[in-house]
């Protein structure tokens, strides 16, 4: 994986086979004002899913209404013995249809898809910077890190405390969470920068991770370059096939030689090296 030259890569799992499967909804519940979570029964798929990967969901509600194409959704919960979970912002017709699903109904999924986060067992501490739905994407990383004995330090940015979802983020992983809010101005880039610089000085992380905000991505990219800390970012893009076949989901990424190339979020991503990815 030449895109993460500075990580002694140990991927969280092998390139798993991709399944097209109809799964049973175990739980479907709103989270806060604008989010929703779905838990699905999927013993084997959940076990071979990795944080940072995603599924492609057929967004038809119990009434069969929904858009023609699937929608990509990060894995929010996974693991052996765990249900497969998604946490999403109810945004348009696809996510609205998903939110109308009820326990006991079926959901067609394709996955697991894409390249997840890489964690190096030699690391002692990582820092996570998340905002909005980036929370859902980064949440399972806290558990994976904990399982490898890596401490996770998270800075979560949200509109206000009602939107934070700290519980949904950290679960029982023991990650330490600092929250910043638009409501009190603590989420301003300059203030988050000061916060991060203090962290880096106090307990320098071995790697940083981010998702969900272009501004925070740019900030973390700049700081991690300055401090020489490797990083990873999970990117989003509208998708067609989700499998790497249609080339509609590309983002600009700098390759090993420094040239800017279009890479597929669904195939080479969604997780990219923090320095290689270009802002959107």
């Amino acid at each position: 994986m030449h895109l993460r030259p500075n990580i002694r890569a140990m991927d969280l799992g092998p390139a798993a086979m991709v399944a097209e499967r109809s799964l049973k909804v175990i739980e479907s519940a709103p989270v806060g004002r604008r989010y929703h979570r779905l838990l699905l029964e999927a013993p084997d798929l959940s076990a071979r899913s990795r944080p940072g990967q995603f599924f492609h969901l057929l967004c038809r509600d119990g009434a069969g209404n929904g858009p023609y194409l699937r929608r990509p959704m990060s894995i929010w919960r996974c693991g052996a013995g765990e249900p497969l979970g998604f946490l999403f912002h109810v945004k348009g017709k696809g996510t609205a249809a998903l939110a109308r699903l009820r326990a006991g109904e079926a959901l067609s999924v394709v996955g697991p898809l894409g390249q997840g986060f890489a964690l190096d067992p030699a690391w002692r501490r990582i820092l996570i910077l998340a905002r909005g739905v980036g929370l859902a994407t980064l949440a399972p990383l806290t558990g994976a890190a904990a399982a490898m004995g890596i401490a996770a330090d998270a800075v979560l940015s949200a509109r206000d405390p009602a939107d934070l979802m700290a519980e949904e983020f950290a679960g029982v992983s023991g990650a330490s969470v600092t929250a910043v809010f638009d409501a009190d101005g603590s989420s301003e880039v300059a203030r988050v920068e000061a916060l991060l610089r203090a962290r880096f000085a106090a307990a320098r992380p071995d790697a940083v991770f981010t998702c969900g905000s272009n501004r925070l991505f740019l900030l973390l990219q700049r700081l991690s370059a300055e401090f020489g800390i490797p990083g990873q970012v999970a990117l989003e893009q509208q998708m067609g096939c989700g499998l790497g076949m249609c080339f509609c989901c590309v983002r600009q990424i700098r390759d090993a030689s420094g040239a800017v190339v279009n890479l597929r979020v669904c195939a080479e991503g969604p997780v990219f090296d923090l320095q290689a990815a270009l802002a959107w």
Partner: protein
Amino acid sequence: MVDLSTRIGSLTLANPVMPASGTFGPELAKVFDLDALGALVTKSVTPEFRAGNPLPRLCETEAGVLNSIGIPGKGLDHFIEHAMPEWRRFRAPLVVSYSAPTVASFAEGAARLAATPGVAAIEANISCPNLEEDGRAFAMHPEPAAAATAAMRRVVGRAPLWVKLSPNTGDIAAVARAVEDAGADALVVANTILGLAIDIETARPKLGSGMGGFSGPAFKPIALRLVWQVAQAVRIPVIGVGGIATAEDAVEFLMAGATAVQVGTATFVSPTAMLGVVDGLRGFCARKGLARVADLTGAALPTGLPRAAE
């Protein structure tokens, strides 16, 4: 037992189901064994590197999608050197879709592909802009379509040469006849039809490049009509494509005169759709007491008219 095999000129396929160019790649092997397909069809290869079109490149519509991907790719050299070895891992015959901006570059690329081991057939995508004709697609008119075909035929010898037609023409039968006369072994009908969607919040087209190609179930009645018209105009085999998602859809195309079918957009919604089409064709023939799927070809054509020959 139903015989699912089908013949396209000198090529025999184990079954008549294959992917449509641009909606398929070796990545699908992660979902199922691609050798279950009658053939594999690459996304269009171009002579040189192409970055592709501005984003967004795809948007959905009622029962369909619009795309303007722009045929991104690393060019023919890279394809032959790096992609072909990967494709050779599969046993199913490989059809390489090739697209070029001039008659000469169509011929040049076709010659190289014909000489490349593992290429079972060339599918010429002539729906692309013709730089020598003001950017109008070759497939819009009989003359440029025939010119590109004839130039390829001259250099590929007896290698199977398929030509993919476009719905964006006033008279597809005339284009089909011209391409047949110019030496094509089979016609692929059809590429996407021009469409548009507008984001009413921003008052901008939903695709980065404005108009795009329309495909999916919504497009099916038009594609089926094109196959029907072409099958009655030519004697070479027709490969039907456009909106096929189920075996029933495939049967319609075969009955309208197609010898094989391609599945495109449906794979985005159900990656295993093509397997369902293969299974369903077997089931349909069994239920109807047909020994060979090939017997379906042209079954709905007006009596007395020539069916598309195998």
